[in-house]
């Protein structure tokens, strides 16, 4: 299985390596938020324990990056589905989990390259955070983007028509983003909105990332966030493997 995963990974990372520009294209959104929205918060938000608002805003944008790169990953599967690549591979003895994980691994790697660039940009803008917190934050974002990309592939495999994919993904990612407190902490939200956000796994990821960037490693937020992200990852991988096994069946 690890061997199969690497084979699929190498196959799908090929086009990315040949035109690395694609890495930059899918990070435009988060970068725009970082550069054009982040500065507005500098005088608005005062967070206890933080040197400035970037320490609160950047972790949110990191989650947003994982959401976009992971959530839209399924787009890359559509041409392969159309061309019959997926079917061709399903008639080989390759592990079904590897068919999914090889692609997920590609997306995780791409997300990590983007995340490092993003955090570097944030540092230029004035973010300061402990190195260990940044590293742990990246690790959590990696698992999160893996979970989201597995979910995205599952949707691409399950929808009866490929043109349904874009509207479905868009109408899911936007509420997930707004309800996670990526842009502003959900502490500012009225009660009903905060209650709704409890049902969004991403809000736990955002809370955990913020705690990590503040160096608050022992916080309950970190434990809860890690647990939620790991459970969601496990769930989406099982779900995705099932759709690879049962596609059209």
């Amino acid at each position, binding site marked *: 299985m690890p061997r199969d995963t690497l084979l699929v990974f190498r196959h799908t990372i090929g086009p990315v390596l040949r035109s690395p520009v694609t890495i930059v294209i899918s990070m435009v959104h988060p970068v725009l938020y970082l550069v054009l929205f982040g500065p507005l918060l500098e005088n608005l938000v005062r967070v206890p324990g933080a040197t400035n608002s970037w320490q609160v805003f950047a972790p949110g944008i990191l989650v947003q990056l994982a959401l976009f790169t992971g959530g839209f990953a399924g787009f890359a599967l559509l041409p392969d589905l159309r061309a019959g*690549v997926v079917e*061709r591979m399903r008639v080989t*003895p390759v592990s079904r989990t590897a068919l999914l994980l090889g692609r997920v691994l590609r997306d995780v790697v791409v997300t990590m390259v983007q995340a490092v660039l993003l955090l570097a940009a944030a540092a230029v803008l004035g973010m300061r955070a402990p190195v260990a917190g940044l590293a742990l934050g990246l690790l959590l974002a990696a698992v999160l983007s893996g979970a989201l990309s597995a979910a995205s592939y599952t949707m691409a495999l399950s929808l009866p028509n490929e043109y349904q994919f874009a509207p479905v993904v868009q109408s899911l990612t936007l509420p997930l983003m707004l309800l996670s407190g990526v842009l502003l902490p959900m502490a500012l939200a009225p009660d009903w909105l905060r209650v709704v956000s409890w049902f969004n796994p991403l809000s736990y990821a955002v809370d955990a990332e913020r705690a990590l960037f503040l160096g608050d490693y022992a916080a309950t937020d970190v434990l809860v966030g890690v647990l939620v992200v790991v459970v969601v990852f496990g769930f989406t991988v099982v779900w995705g493997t099932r759709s690879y096994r049962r596609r059209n069946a």
Partner: protein
Amino acid sequence: MIHVRGLARRFQTRRATVDAVRGVDLDVAAGEIVGFLGPNGAGKTTTLRMLTTLLEPSAGSAEVAGHDLRREPAAVRRRIGYVAQGGGCSPQGRVREELVLQARLHRLDRDRARRRVDELMDRFALGDLADRTTATLSGGQRRRLDLAIGLVHDPAVLFLDEPTAALDPQSRAHVWDHVRALNADHHATVFLTTHYLDEADALCDRVLVIDHGRIVAAGTPAELKRQVSGDVVEVAGPRLAALAEIAGRLRGARDVATTADSVRFRVPRGDTALPELMRALDQASVPLTSVQVHHPTLDDVFLAVTGRSLRDDAPEATRAA
């Protein structure tokens, strides 16, 4: 090599239940080339997708390459090759990389994969295309690559879905040559679907005709043609009425029809009817200016067993999978 009993597949859509395949029985011996002939929507591709483990059957059982299809799909996958109608190359993939990947997915180690890919690139004349992306290949080149991909692990059975659909005549002939060579040199069993009668006729040892999800006729192309319609004999001469009368008295002759300048009739076998006809005409001193024997095509077979021509695609079943 393939044994199928009662294989069926039902699709449930919101509005209706579609029985795409309704209980197919078939056997393919090792080393045979068998053609699955039928119009679009007849259930060809659905059957093929079941036999290649892509689609779970609703009912029935099958043994493919020595393994039970439903209980050991992974073992079946190791021993079969499958070339889908549209192929299966990544548009951005490169010819050689695609082949190596397929070999590696079939668990060949790096060295064996390289040797095998070299061999196939040679056999399918892909050497000059090694670093081209598959999207830039011509139809014929793509098909050669698809075939090479299907053969990378030297499968016991090769499944081809419409192997020459949308190919130019020259590329079609090449594909036929490759399939024949594969069968002759490597004793591969080949199971292919087609809706081209000439393809089934030219390539297949045996033909199964499928319509509305059922096999409606089976046999060698020659058997099917003989069983269904016999040969058509067309004779011409100055005294058409006399010709028609004598032709009608031949053993087994039927459907005698006189046109403006000839007489047509059917006999079970044209080659044995001709000497008899000549003698009878000679005795009656009826002059003959020309004789033609038309052998029936598989198109006639199809018309006879299904009641419609192969070219009229069933509109209600255009989407079988």
